[in-house]
C-alpha cells in the first residue's frame, strides 16, 4: 500500500501547490483589477483611513481638515468655518466632492504621482500616510467680510475679490450657502437627508453664485463699451458725445431712456439734445449715450472687446470651473438690440467673478491676469509640490485706454454727482468703480439686480471686487457697500 500512499502524498502536495498558486494569483497579481471592481467597499473607505490634507487660506487659517475619529473610518472631514468658505472648499462626502475638495483631490488624498515616493517612505518608516496641504490665495479677512456683507442683504448674492496684479482670488463668497460639515458624515442615511434638503431648497444653497450663476451686468458693462470706444482711437474721456434724453431706436417704436427718465445734463445740455463729455456720461451712467455709442461701434467690435475681458469663455478653471459670462451674437445685427447690449441688457450675462475681472484688467494697465485660487501645495514633509505662477490671460486694452477708463471709474466715486459717491466714497481709500442696476424678468417686471465692479486703492491697485445682489435694487445702494466692506477688510489685514 505504500506505493499508493506515496502517490497520494504527491496528490496532496499538488493540491497545496495549486492553492498556493491560487492565493498568489489573487493577492499578488489581481489586487489592482479587484480594486476597481463594483462594490469594493474596502478601497472606497481606504480614503478615510489616513489623514487627508488640510486646506488653508493665504494667511494660514485652516478651513478644511481631517480629524481623527472612532469607528471604521479613522478620519473625518471638518470645516471650521463652514458657511463662509463653503463655495471655496466645497465638500468631500462618502460619494462625491465639490469645490477645491474635488479639484485638488489628488493632492489632498495623496494619490498624486508626485506623492508616491513620500507615501512609500512613510510606508517603510511606519509613518501614517497623509495627504498634501493645499494653501489658497483666499484671504480670511476679505472672505469673512464678503460673506457677512452678503448675508446682511438676505438676498441671493455673490462676491469675488481679485488681486489685479496677479489674478489671485482674495475672496469668493456666495449667499445663501450650505454647511459642508453636513456632508462629512459617515452615516449614509443622514448624508442623503442633508443632500436632499439642500437640493430641494428653492433658495439653491448649493449654487456657487460667485462663479456659477450669471446675471445681467447692467451699466457696469459700460466699462466694456467705453473700452471698445477708446480702443478705436476716436474717443477719449473728454470727447463730447451725443446725449439725448430719449434715444430713438431704429426698427422699433421703443425708445431708450435714462434712469428714472432723467436727462443726461451736466448743465450744458438742458434740452437733452446736445452733447456731454464722455466722462460725464460714464459718471452719471447715461444709457442713451452708451446705447447710441453701441450702435455706432457695432455688435462685433463690442463682442471682441468683451471676449478680451474673458467673456464667452466656458473653459475657465480657477481651478473651480467657472460658468461662461456671455455676450451672445445679436440676431441680424439689429441696432436696437445692439444698443441694449451696449448698456449691459438684452442677453448679456456675467458672473460676479467676471465683474471683478473687468475692474482687475483696468486696474492692471489693461493686462488681465488669469484668476487662480491655489497658491501652493505642500507635501506632508513640507516640500513644496506646486506653487502658483501668475499668468496673463490677455491684454484687454492698451495701458492708455486703461488709464482713460480708470479715470472715469475714479469719477464715479469721487464726483459728488457720481453714481457711487454716496456709498463708496471713503476719505482714506480711493476707490474706482462702476455701478449697475440691471432690469430683468419678463418686460423687466422683476426686481432689479444690483451690480458693482471696482478696484482700490486707485494709486496702487491691490484689490478688484465684483458684487451682484439679485433683486437688490440699485447697484450703488445694495452692492457698493458690500464691495467697500471687502476692500476695507482686506486693506486693513494687509496693513498689519
Amino acid at each position, binding site marked *: *500500500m505504500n506505493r499508493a500512499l506515496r502517490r497520494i502524498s504527491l496528490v496532496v502536495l499538488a493540491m497545496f501547490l495549486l492553492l498556493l498558486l491560487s*492565493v498568489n494569483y489573487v493577492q499578488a497579481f489581481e489586487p489592482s483589477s479587484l*480594486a476597481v471592481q*463594483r462594490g469594493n467597499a474596502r478601497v472606497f473607505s481606504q480614503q478615510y483611513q489616513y489623514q487627508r490634507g488640510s486646506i488653508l487660506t493665504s494667511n494660514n487659517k485652516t478651513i478644511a481638515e481631517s480629524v481623527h475619529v472612532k469607528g471604521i473610518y479613522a478620519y473625518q472631514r471638518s470645516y471650521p468655518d463652514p458657511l463662509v468658505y463653503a463655495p471655496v472648499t466645497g465638500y468631500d462626502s462618502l460619494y462625491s466632492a465639490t469645490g477645491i475638495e474635488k479639484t485638488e483631490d489628488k493632492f489632498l488624498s495623496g494619490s498624486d504621482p508626485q506623492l508616491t515616493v513620500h507615501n512609500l517612505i512613510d510606508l517603510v518608516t511606519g509613518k501614517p500616510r497623509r495627504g498634501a496641504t493645499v494653501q489658497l490665495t483666499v484671504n480670511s479677512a476679505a472672505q469673512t467680510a464678503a460673506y457677512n456683507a452678503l448675508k446682511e442683504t438676505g438676498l441671493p448674492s455673490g462676491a469675488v475679490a481679485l488681486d489685479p496684479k496677479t489674478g489671485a482670488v482674495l475672496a469668493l463668497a456666495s449667499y445663501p450657502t450650505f454647511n459642508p460639515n453636513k456632508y462629512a458624515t459617515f452615516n449614509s442615511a443622514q448624508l442623503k437627508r442633508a443632500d436632499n434638503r439642500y437640493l430641494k431648497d428653492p433658495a439653491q444653497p448649493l449654487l456657487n453664485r460667485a462663479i456659477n450663476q450669471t446675471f445681467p451686468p447692467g451699466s457696469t458693462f459700460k466699462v466694456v463699451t467705453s473700452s471698445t470706444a477708446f480702443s478705436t482711437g476716436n474717443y477719449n474721456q473728454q470727447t463730447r458725445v451725443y446725449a439725448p434724453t430719449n434715444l430713438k431706436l431704429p426698427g422699433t417704436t421703443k425708445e431708450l431712456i435714462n434712469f428714472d427718465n432723467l436727462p443726461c445734463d451736466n448743465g450744458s445740455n438742458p434740452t437733452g439734445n446736445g452733447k456731454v463729455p464722455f466722462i460725464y456720461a460714464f459718471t452719471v451712467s447715461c444709457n442713451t449715450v452708451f446705447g447710441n455709442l453701441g450702435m455706432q461701434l457695432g455688435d462685433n467690435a463690442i463682442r471682441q472687446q468683451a471676449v478680451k475681458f474673458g467673456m464667452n469663455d466656458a473653459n475657465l478653471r480657477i481651478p473651480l470651473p467657472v460658468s461662461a459670462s456671455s455676450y451672445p451674437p445679436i440676431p441680424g445685427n439689429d441696432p436696437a438690440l445692439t444698443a441694449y447690449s451696449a448698456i449691459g441688457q438684452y442677453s448679456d450675462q456675467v458672473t460676479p467673478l467676471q465683474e471683478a475681472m473687468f475692474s482687475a484688467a483696468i486696474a492692471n494697465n489693461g493686462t488681465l491676469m488669469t484668476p487662480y485660487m491655489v497658491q501652493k501645495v505642500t507635501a506632508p514633509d513640507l516640500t513644496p509640490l506646486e506653487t502658483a505662477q501668475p499668468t496673463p490671460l490677455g491684454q484687454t486694452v492698451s495701458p492708455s485706454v486703461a488709464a482713460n477708463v480708470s479715470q472715469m471709474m475714479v469719477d464715479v466715486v469721487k464726483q459728488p454727482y457720481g453714481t457711487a459717491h454716496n456709498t463708496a466714497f471713503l476719505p482714506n481709500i480711493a476707490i474706482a468703480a462702476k455701478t449697475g442696476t440691471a432690469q430683468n424678468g419678463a418686460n423687466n417686471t422683476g426686481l432689479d439686480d444690483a451690480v458693482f465692479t471696482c478696484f482700490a486703492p486707485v494709486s496702487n491697485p491691490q484689490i478688484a471686487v465684483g458684487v451682484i445682489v439679485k433683486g437688490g435694487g440699485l447697484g450703488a445702494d445694495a452692492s457698493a457697500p458690500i464691495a467697500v466692506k471687502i476692500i476695507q477688510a482686506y486693506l486693513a489685514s494687509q496693513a498689519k
Partner: protein
Amino acid sequence: MSVVATPGQPGDPAGTGPLHAPVHAAQQGPVPMPRGRRRTELAMLVFAVAVVLFAYASVGLSMTGRIPAGILGYGLAFALLMLLAHLAIRWLAPWADPLMLPLAALLNGLGIVMIYRLQQSGRDGNAGRVISTMSTSSTVLQVIWSTVGVAAFIAVLALVREPRTLQRYTYTLGAVGLVLLAIPALLPSSLSEVNGAKVWISVGGFSVQPGEFAKLALAVFFAGYLVAKRDVLSLAGRRVLGIDLPRARDLGPVLIAWGASLLILVFETDIGTSALFFGMFLVMLYVATQRTSWLLIGGVLFVSGAYVASKLFAHVHERVDIWLHPFAAQNVYHSSYQLVQGLYGMGYGGVLGTGLGNGQPYWTPLVQSDFIFTAFGEELGLTGLMAILLIYGLIAERGLRAAVAVRDPFSKLLAAGLSFVLALQVFVIVGGVTRLIPLTGITTPFLSQGGSSLVASWMLIALLMRISDTARRPAPQPIQEEGMTQVVRGG
C-alpha cells in the same frame, strides 16, 4: 538494509526511520533508546502559543491602541489548555509525531484571535452591532469549544490505545456515520437549515454539524470495510486501454458511496460535504487496492454527477454561475456578493496584508466561518496565507507519513483517509474562496467559528497522533543478557 538504523536517532530528525529494519542493539554499549521528541514538541508549542499571544496583542493595539485586557486570562487559558494536551501526549502517546500538536495549536489559536477581532469590529465595522451568526460571547464560546476539543483529543488518545481496536467497530461506526449524515436531511428545515445549507441539528440556539463527526466515523468504516474487501476489490476484470477495470459485480460499494454523496448534494444542498466524502472514499479505495482504475471510475462518476446536478438543481447551477461570472452586474450584489467581498478582502491585503485589526474583513458575509481564510488573507496578506497553507500541508503530509510508517493495514488506511480528507477540506474551501474551483460552504479546519468543526478536527488530530505513536513506538525491549547480542524482529 544492513546499516544499523534506530528510530529517532539524531541522524533521523523526524524520527520515522524504517521500523522494519532489524535492530542491532547492545553492541556498542547501552541500548540507544528511540526518542519521542516530546521536548521538541514542547518547544514548538511554546512558540505557537507565543505567536498566538502576539497576534492577540496586535489586534488590540491596532483596534484600540491598547493590549487587550483579556490577554492574561485568555492567554493563560490557552497556554494551559495546550500544556494539558502536551502532558496527555507524554502520558498517552509518547512516541507520537511532535509536529502535529504545535501546528494544530497555532491554527486553533489564530482562529480564536480572528474571531475576537471580528467580534470587536462588529457588523460593517460598526462596533455596536454584531456580525450575523456571531454574538458578543463568540470569542468566549470559541475558547470553550477549544477546551472541549482538547478534551475530546485527550479522550480519543485515552480510549483508543491501539488504532486496530477501532476495526472492531467498523460497521457500528459506519451506521453511526450514515445516521449522523442523514439526520439533517430528515429533520424539518427549521431544525436543520442555517444559511441555506441543511447540515445542522439545531435545537434551542445550540447547533451541531453532525457531518463533521460523520467524517471521522465513516473514515473508520471505510478503512475497516476496505481492509476486509481489498483482495476482492483489487481483482482485475477486463483490460481496456491498458487499464485493468474491476469486475462489474465489485462496483457495488463505489456506486453506493456515489449515490450517498449525491443524496447529500440534493437533500442537504451541501456540495462541499458531498465532495469530501466521495473523495475520501475514492482515495482510500485506491490505497487499499492500488488500482488506478478506481480513481478513474470514481472521478468520472463524480464529475458526471456534479455536471448533471448543476443542470438539474438551481443551487448547484448558481454555484457554477458565480464561479464563472462573479463580477457580472446581476451577481455582484446578490449571489456572488460573499465570494466577491472575500476576493476584495484578499486583494486589499495584498502581499503583506493590512496587519491584524487594520483591515475591513467585516464587509464579507459569514467571514467568521466559511470565509475566515479571506479575513486572514486581508490582514496577514499573501505571506500569512502561504504560512497557513503550509501548516495544513504539513499536518496532511505528516499524517500520510504516519500511514506509510505504520504496519497494520487498517491503521494505514485510516491515517491515509483522515490525512487526505483534511487536505481535501482545505482544498475545497480555500480553492472555493480564491475562485480556483466553485465555492462550496464548508468550514476551514481549526480556524472557522463553530464547535463541531473544531472538536472534530481535534479528534482527527488525535487519531493521526495515535497512529503515528503506534508507528514510531519501538518494539518492547527484550531482557538483555550478557552475550546475547542480537535480537531479530519479524517485520
